[in-house]
């Protein structure tokens, strides 16, 4: 029995060591890497993490090869996976004190990472942002520090199938003037006229940017600059009421079908499968949905842009490039971000893979090479340029949970388990808890 006991003690010691480790996981390491002033630069290895599917991995690898051509002393280790697993892996590696040097970030999580000291201020690292739109830069700025710079921009919009409209004998709306009532009426009419073979619209309630736009149209907002909620519960209830009107009028499928379609993602959306006329998506999803539907689709402004106090649509950073605050080679990491962002060679390869390029020079240079659907999206965004007033602030810490809250409470509403007013109350409560904690 002596052996077992001693190994228990060893185990306990090890556990304590593990605890100590956990405790120091967050503490800062020396920000090393003095730029070498003379002589050939030391070989350096940095890690770059992103999410996506195989097309993006391939394009990015091509860019990384170009980068290494330009800076032979820097080796970039790619670290990629799909969206669903990306943040599990990132969170764990940050906890283990082993964060990637260049981190791709998303709007909802940027503040979580930034406010906890994981990300470096890109301004301090001397990143060149002269060719990037001020609004876009603002979308990665928290308390005057630039924690992420947008890879490119998208807008939340309606993807419509003109063939479905034609089949129903309904005219495409003028999207600069249509109201929310129009939206409901048109959708109901399409469903009615096609006898339900084509639905007018897919439910929009599963994604909170839709509500963000709705609130902005009324001069409110989902989040405020000081990380609070900026809408009236009545506004939120109205937003859901339109969904219920659509459901009641047949303009959108019943709750179960809606949940089913929503779970299928862009490819299995109503428009993607040719069974619906309108779905809400980001402009960069146009390509995927067009391919899935096999038809030419059209981007529309969301309804109500000229109905209330102001326009609500905005440019959303598709994702952000960030640099780890604990990177051993922050200079080289910044060099990579600069290359991805500002070098036409990178832009030529990536095109619109990470949204419409944020660097306006690069955008102008590569626009001609876009695929037809990307060109369509680019033109749509260009048209919006004058209408968009501002961008919403960076979502607060805890915003990552809001996607789930939105989807769940929307389902409660669609299944008739909560009235819009009660749902709004509960939503506000839950989101407050999420972003307050």
């Amino acid at each position, binding site marked *: 029995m002596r052996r077992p006991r001693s190994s228990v003690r060893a185990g306990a010691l090890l556990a304590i060591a593990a605890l100590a480790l956990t405790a120091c996981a967050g503490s800062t390491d020396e920000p090393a890497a003095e730029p070498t002033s003379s002589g050939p630069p030391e070989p350096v290895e940095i890690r770059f993490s992103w999410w996506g599917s195989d*097309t993006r*991995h391939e394009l990015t690898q091509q860019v990384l090869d170009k980068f290494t051509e330009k800076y032979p002393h820097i080796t970039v280790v790619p670290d990629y996976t799909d*969206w*669903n697993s990306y943040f599990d892996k990132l969170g*764990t590696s940050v906890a283990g004190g082993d964060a990637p040097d260049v981190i791709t970030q998303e709007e909802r999580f940027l503040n979580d990472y930034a406010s906890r000291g994981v990300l470096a201020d890109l301004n301090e690292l001397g990143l060149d942002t002269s060719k990037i739109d001020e609004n876009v830069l603002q979308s990665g700025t928290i308390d005057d520090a630039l924690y992420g710079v947008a890879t490119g921009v998208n807008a939340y919009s309606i993807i419509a199938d003109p063939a479905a409209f034609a089949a129903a004998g309904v005219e495409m709306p003028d999207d600069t003037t249509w109201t929310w009532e129009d939206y409901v009426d048109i959708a109901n009419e399409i469903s009615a006229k096609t006898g339900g073979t084509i639905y007018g619209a897919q439910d929009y309630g599963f994604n909170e940017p839709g509500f963000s736009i709705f609130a902005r149209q009324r001069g409110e907002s989902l989040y405020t600059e000081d990380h609070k909620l900026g809408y009236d519960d009545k506004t939120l209830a109205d937003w859901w009421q339109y969904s219920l009107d659509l459901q009641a009028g047949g303009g959108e499928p019943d709750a179960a079908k809606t949940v089913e379609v929503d779970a299928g993602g862009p490819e299995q959306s109503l428009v993607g499968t040719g069974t619906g006329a309108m779905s809400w998506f980001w402009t960069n999803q146009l*390509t995927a949905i067009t391919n899935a539907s096999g038809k030419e689709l059209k981007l529309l402004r969301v309804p109500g842009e000229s109905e209330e106090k102001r326009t609500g649509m905005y440019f959303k950073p598709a994702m952000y490039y960030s640099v780890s605050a604990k990177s051993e080679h922050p200079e080289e990491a910044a060099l990579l971000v600069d290359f991805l962002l500002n070098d036409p060679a990178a832009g030529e390869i990536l095109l619109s893979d990470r949204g419409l390029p944020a660097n306006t020079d690069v955008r102008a240079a590569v626009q001609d090479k876009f695929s037809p659907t990307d060109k369509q999206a680019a033109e749509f965004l260009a048209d919006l340029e004058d209408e968009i007033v501002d961008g919403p602030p960076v979502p607060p810490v805890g915003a990552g949970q809001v996607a789930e809250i939105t989807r769940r409470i929307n389902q409660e509403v669609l299944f008739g388990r909560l009235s819009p007013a009660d749902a709004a109350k509960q939503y506000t409560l839950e989101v407050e808890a999420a972003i307050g904690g």
Partner: protein
Amino acid sequence: MTEVHVRTTPTDATPSSSSAQRISALADEAPPVRYRSPWPDRRRAALKHLGLIALCALMLYPLVWLLVSSFKPTDLIFRDVSLIPSEVDWTNYSEGWNALQYPFSRYLMNSAIIVLGSLLGNLVACSMAAYAFARLEFRGRKLWFAVMLMSIMLPIHVIIVPQYILFAKLDWINTFLPLIVPKLLATDAFFIFLMVQFFRGIPRELDEAARLDGCGHGRIYLRIMLPLSLPALATTAIFTFIWTWNDFFSQLIFLVRPDMYTAPVALRTFLDSTGASSWGPMFAMSIVSLIPVFLAFLFGQKYLVKGIATTGIK
């Protein structure tokens, strides 16, 4: 093996015949009811076959769907859900094989390495521990057994971060070590418990006889327990293979560089729920990575049916 036959057969006769006698004695007391099928055997067998075939069809439907989908272009997979493909299109396979940074064989190889290490670990280390728990009398046995069971009650998601920190400290991140070494050290309590149950099913008289012949525990374990629990070892091998091959989460977390990715991790990189996913190539490579597990199952199954019945003990 032959040794086992010679050794065990005579000693074996005593206890078994006694139980057999008891059974026959009891059977004598029982009313002489004979269960006879109203149908001739052949017809009953035919019915069984029919039922099984129907069940197989039901069970196979999803796989057939997967297989058929792997031959459809990605944009048709969700639009056309019929089981008969309009044309057989191999491009998903060629594309899927080459779409990622390395040919898919690389990821299959990585998976294979981890599987082989885990097989070795689970078969040797877990059966050793199981022997101790099943056959040895030592202080704190029940306590240790409880600790062992408890170690599989904590969900992986709260263990993974401390584990990551531990393995990072050991500098094992992005190696196969975090995925193999634990298996070599019998951390998979499932298999220990499994083998304990099987070892306990082997009549004690056998090892006692061996003991009287002067065998130590090492020899009893090697010459009696292991050969007699071939089905359990085959089960362990099959499950280790399949579960390690399909294990996604820990492989995702501990393997950082794409050249170390395993098949399930690589499969995920075809998908992007926020944009365009390559469903076709993903399905094709799913089929490809199912082949090794299925072969492993077919191979392991041969040993599964070699129970006590066929190892010389009656």
